[in-house]
């Protein structure tokens, strides 16, 4: 706005701000328009000055304005428009961050990333899918050109945010495990306990005897969780402590059963108080399966085989979790085969092992889920999902789980529907695209609206046409 006009407007406005006439502040050619009536003149002056201000006004930007760096694109193609609405609905209905993570993994399995206007990553999340790391870097720093464009080194370690750092170390564990170990030896100790605990997960990738010295050095780590994790990884490598497990063994009782053929079995000691249960849980968290088995002079697998699984479900969970964290790969394979062999068993124990299962066993486990009883499902079933969008319609539609889900909706069974909602989410994550479409059709026939919240993951799945640069079921 021209300076003189701005000054003129300011002078007139200042008269009106506190009240009174502004005619004296106006130039003669304006007041001439007003005529002889001062009241009318004031109104005309108001109309003129208001309109001048409206047309000439330009907002004055503040001296300091920040422009964020260019938004990087996710490392995969953006979700097509048709899938964006079901994606938003699915993320909205995802009850937990874990489910949201599975939805993103389903997208990734078909070769897509979420549209940045629909979802943006939280850089504090240490488990972000790799495709979103550039975006997370941008959110964290406002810059697209982050340190993660360079290889992670001891020098630029602090420039990486935790998820990017974990991803970089994980990549190095495959491509250059010696360099990864060297880097961890230099930088691990300087991180806070929470970050160190998350970083320990990289030892699940490509474990080898070369890890042993570093893991053994963590015996004196400041964090009990890190110490326990180190012991468990050592145990997986067959380097667990030879000594017995001490106090934890007090919660297990060795018995002999059978009259003609005497057989040794192990079963949990019956507990009477919540305090005892808490202590058992704490001791098991800090243990290895090998050490526990050693307390009873047997090996890991023998101990698991002799365990009495029908005594205490909570202790079963602790034991399976212990196996998942610390048993050797050979023990895990044999244990999984043992669990698969038991019919009509609650599938949840397998869920705890899923992180250690081979892909073929994961698929067997998923088939197991599809044929499990609705009452045995729950939110926990999603914990071990690792393969997405691969199961065919004939398996899913003929499975007990989907039939019971359908029954719960068509019969208006409120309790069954409460179970059916998370179960449908799991089925939506497992199904391949034709299976998702087929399930939606069956659900529609059962009276479920095509836009029902419960079907949002299925609808998303049905919209995700496989891209050429993705591999199904991963």
């Amino acid at each position, binding site marked *: 706005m021209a300076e003189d006009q701005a000054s003129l407007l300011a002078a007139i406005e200042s008269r009106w701000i506190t009240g*009174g006439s*502004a005619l004296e502040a106006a130039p003669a050619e304006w007041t001439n328009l007003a005529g002889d009536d001062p009241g009318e003149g004031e109104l005309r002056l108001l109309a003129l000055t208001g309109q001048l201000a409206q*047309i000439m006004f330009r907002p004055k930007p503040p001296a300091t304005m920040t*422009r964020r760096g260019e938004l990087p694109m996710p490392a995969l193609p953006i979700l097509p428009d048709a899938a964006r609405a079901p994606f938003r609905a699915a993320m909205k209905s995802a009850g937990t961050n874990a489910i949201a993570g599975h939805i993103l993994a389903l997208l990734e399995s078909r070769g897509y990333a979420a549209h940045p206007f629909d979802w*943006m990553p939280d850089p504090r999340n240490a488990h972000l899918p790799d495709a979103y790391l550039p975006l997370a870097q941008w959110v964290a720093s406002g810059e697209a050109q982050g340190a993660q464009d360079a290889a992670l080194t001891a020098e630029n370690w602090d420039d990486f945010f935790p998820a990017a750092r974990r991803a970089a170390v994980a990549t190095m564990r495959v491509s250059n495990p010696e360099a990864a170990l060297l880097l961890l030896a230099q930088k691990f100790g300087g991180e806070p306990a929470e970050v160190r605990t998350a970083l320990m997960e990289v030892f699940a990738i490509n474990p080898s005897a070369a890890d042993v010295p570093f893991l053994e050095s963590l015996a004196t780590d400041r964090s009990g969780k890190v110490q326990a994790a180190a012991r468990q990884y050592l145990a997986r490598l067959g380097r667990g402590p030879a000594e017995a497990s001490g106090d934890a063994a007090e919660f297990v009782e060795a018995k002999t059963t059978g009259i003609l053929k005497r057989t040794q079995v192990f079963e949990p000691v019956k507990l009477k108080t919540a305090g005892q249960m808490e202590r058992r849980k704490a001791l098991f968290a800090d243990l290895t399966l090998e050490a526990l088995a050693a307390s009873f002079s047997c090996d890991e697998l023998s101990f698991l085989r002799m365990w009495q699984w029908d005594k205490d479900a909570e202790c079963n969970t602790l034991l399976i979790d212990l196996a998942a964290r610390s048993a050797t790969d050979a023990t895990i394979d044999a244990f999984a085969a043992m669990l698969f062999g038991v019919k009509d068993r609650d599938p949840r124990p397998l869920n705890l092992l899923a992180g250690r299962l081979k892909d073929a066993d994961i698929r067997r486990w998923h088939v197991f889920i599809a044929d499990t009883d609705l009452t045995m499902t729950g939110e926990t079933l999603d914990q071990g999902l690792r393969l997405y969008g691969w199961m065919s319609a004939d398996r899913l539609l003929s499975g007990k789980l989907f039939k019971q889900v359908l029954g719960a909706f068509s019969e208006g069974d409120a309790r069954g529907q409460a179970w059916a909602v998370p179960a449908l989410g799991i089925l939506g994550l497992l199904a391949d695209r034709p299976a998702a479409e087929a399930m939606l059709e069956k659900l529609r026939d059962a009276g479920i609206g095509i*836009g029902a919240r419960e079907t949002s993951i299925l609808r998303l799945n049905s919209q995700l046409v496989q891209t050429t640069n993705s591999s199904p079921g991963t």
Partner: protein
Amino acid sequence: MTFSLDDIEKLAPDQASLNAASKLTNTSKWPKLQQSGGSNLFWGECQGSGSNPYRVVVDGGDHGYKCSCPPRKFPCKHSLALMWMISSGGAEFREAQPPDWVTEWMGRRRKTAPEPDAQAGPQPSAPKNIATAGVPEPASEVDPQAAIQREAAAAKRREKTQAAIAEAMDELEQWVGDQLRTGLNAFIAGATERCRRIAARMVDLKAGALGGRIDEVPSRLMELEGEEKPTAAMIELGKLVIIAKAWRRNPDDPEIRRIVASSETREQVLTDPDATRIRSVWEVVGEQIRTRPDGLVSHSTWLLDVGNDTRRFALLLDFYPASSGRRESVFVQGERFDAEIVYYPAKSPLRAVIASRQAVAEGSAEEWPRNSSGDRTDPLLAYAELQAACPWLASAPILLDAGALSVDQRNRVWWQAAGDNMALPLSNAVPEAALGLELERSFGVWNGARLELLRAETRLGRVSFDG
């Protein structure tokens, strides 16, 4: 199960609804008719009395229905008409995937398989007969004397209305003068109460539309920083003076009458031989839905002419009571169609209705026109020109050339032109990702102090900021 005529008769709340529905069974009133055979769903868009068409969906499975019209009767005439067209088989429903609004409706409802009688609510006392629906009433004999009396009464009503509005304009100017005498600071401090009182007087004196506008002044002032408010108040009050004077100069000017009293009906606009008509490809570039202090919801849909390089916009504007519930969007953001738009008469036409509409080929993506050309580099030049022609306008659509979003120290977001020669503060929140995108072209509504950014062309495609 789909629909039989018996079903429709049972569902209809009364004979009048059946009569009204029969008039809507003409497919010319339905620019879109689609179905999803697998799910027994039928939906369409019916051009009703509003500027935006109504979205109607019926479920042939359980006879559920939903229409975006203001609900007065259930089912409404649009739902009944859609059922009727399904029943008669005379209309062609194209097979399609259910759009989001149909999907969302299905998601919100639970099928309980109600009997048609139960869903139709209490049985009306008057009998219904679908066979007689639409049959014209026998023409009554024209009484010339009664016609003269009716005309005289109408003229008298018009005269009384003009007199009331003249009184309203006098009161308004008196009130504006009072605000200047007591000071803009005092006006700003008591704006809600002061504006409410004068707005109520405007409504009493037949200047209802102007009353609604005055009622919104306090909320517009509230959006601004303290130092901006006196100038904004001066502008708002100045425009009221301009409107009052423009009305006195020509009370029959349709544009001013629309601002002061009431709008023409859709039919009046469509049959106006002098109305500007533009046939082109239009893109839906934004939507604004606001609940006003007077309890009305204003629903604005902005269309951009992408078939011509004219920077021409059209505004489809509807009002409905907030008590009638949330109204869904009628168009999908970015939707394009070939349509004839008829503008309400105005110095610089903006508000419009759609006379006819048809789909354009999928994937057609005409470029948005550039805002600047030659020496026209000021992004607000078009706005200034519009203000010069129609100084009563509070806000106007603008197209912006290349720019990006920046954040100031108070975390306010600004649209900043490439080259940094201009920055406009935003009134709306934007997704975080938008802060890292170059906005090749943008569309928004500028009110002289704030930009409501609605849509932009980016390397992510055209993105919407209005949800």
